[in-house]
C-alpha cells in the first residue's frame, strides 16, 4: 500500500469522528455557554461548575476529544472545499500541509491547556 492510501482512511475517520462529536455536542454547548448567557436567557455559568467539569478526568478527556477532533474535522473538510470549490489543485500539498498543520499545532495546544 502506498503511504497515500494508508493515510486517506485514517484522515476520513478523524473527519467523521470530529463531525459526529461536533454535531451531537456543539450546538448545546454554544447555546448554554455563549449565546444564552449573553442574551439574558441564562445566568452565566459560575466558575465552580466550569472548573469542576474542566478539572475532572472525564471532562478533560471529553474536551480533548471534542476540540482535537473538531479541528481535524475542519482541516479535512476545509482542505477539500478549497481544493474543489476554488479549484486550487496546484496548491494541494500546500493546503493539505497548512490545514492539517494548523490542526496539529492547535491540538497540541489543546492537550497542554486542558491537562495542565
Amino acid at each position, binding site marked *: 500500500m502506498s503511504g497515500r492510501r494508508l493515510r486517506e482512511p485514517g484522515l476520513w475517520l478523524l473527519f467523521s469522528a470530529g463531525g459526529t462529536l461536533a454535531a451531537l455536542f*456543539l450546538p448545546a454547548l454554544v447555546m448554554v455557554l455563549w449565546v444564552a448567557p449573553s442574551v439574558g436567557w441564562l445566568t452565566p455559568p459560575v466558575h465552580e461548575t466550569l472548573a469542576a467539569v474542566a478539572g475532572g478526568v472525564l471532562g478533560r478527556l471529553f474536551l480533548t476529544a471534542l476540540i482535537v477532533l*473538531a479541528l481535524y474535522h*475542519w482541516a479535512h473538510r476545509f482542505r477539500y472545499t478549497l481544493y474543489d470549490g476554488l479549484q486550487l489543485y496546484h496548491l494541494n500539498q500546500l493546503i493539505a500541509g497548512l490545514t492539517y498543520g494548523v490542526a496539529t499545532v492547535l491540538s497540541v495546544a489543546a492537550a497542554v*491547556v486542558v491537562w495542565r
Partner: protein
Amino acid sequence: MNPAYRRYHPKWYRARMPIFWWLRRVSYFRFIARELTSVFVAYAGVLLLVQVRSVAAGPEALARFTGWLQLPPVAALHVVVLLALLFHTITWLHLAPRAMVVRLGGRRVPDVAVLLGHYGAWLAASALVVWVVVR
C-alpha cells in the same frame, strides 16, 4: 480503433469548469455552505479551548471572558455560529444514515428508524451538556 488516439482527438469540445461552479445550482451552493460549516466547528473548538484556559486562570479571567461574550457584536457573532452549527448538525444527521446499513436480528433497520436514532442521540447529548453546565 486506438482509444489513446480518440482521447486526444483535437476536435472534441471540452467545456471549462467556471470558478463559480457552485453558484450554478442551488444544490451545489447548499453543498458548499454545508462544507463551510466546518470553519464554524473549528472556531467553536478553539473558543472552547480559550474558555478552558480562562477557567484554569481563575474566576477573574472567566469574568473577563464572560464580559467579552456579552458584547453585542460578539453575542451576534455567536448567534451566527450557533445557526451554522445547527446547519452542520442537521445535515450531518441526515447524511450519516446513508453511510450505514444497520441490521438488528437479521433484518435491515429502515432509514427512518436510523435517523430517529440519530436525533435521539443528539437530544441525549444536548441534555447531558445542559445538565452538566446549568446544574
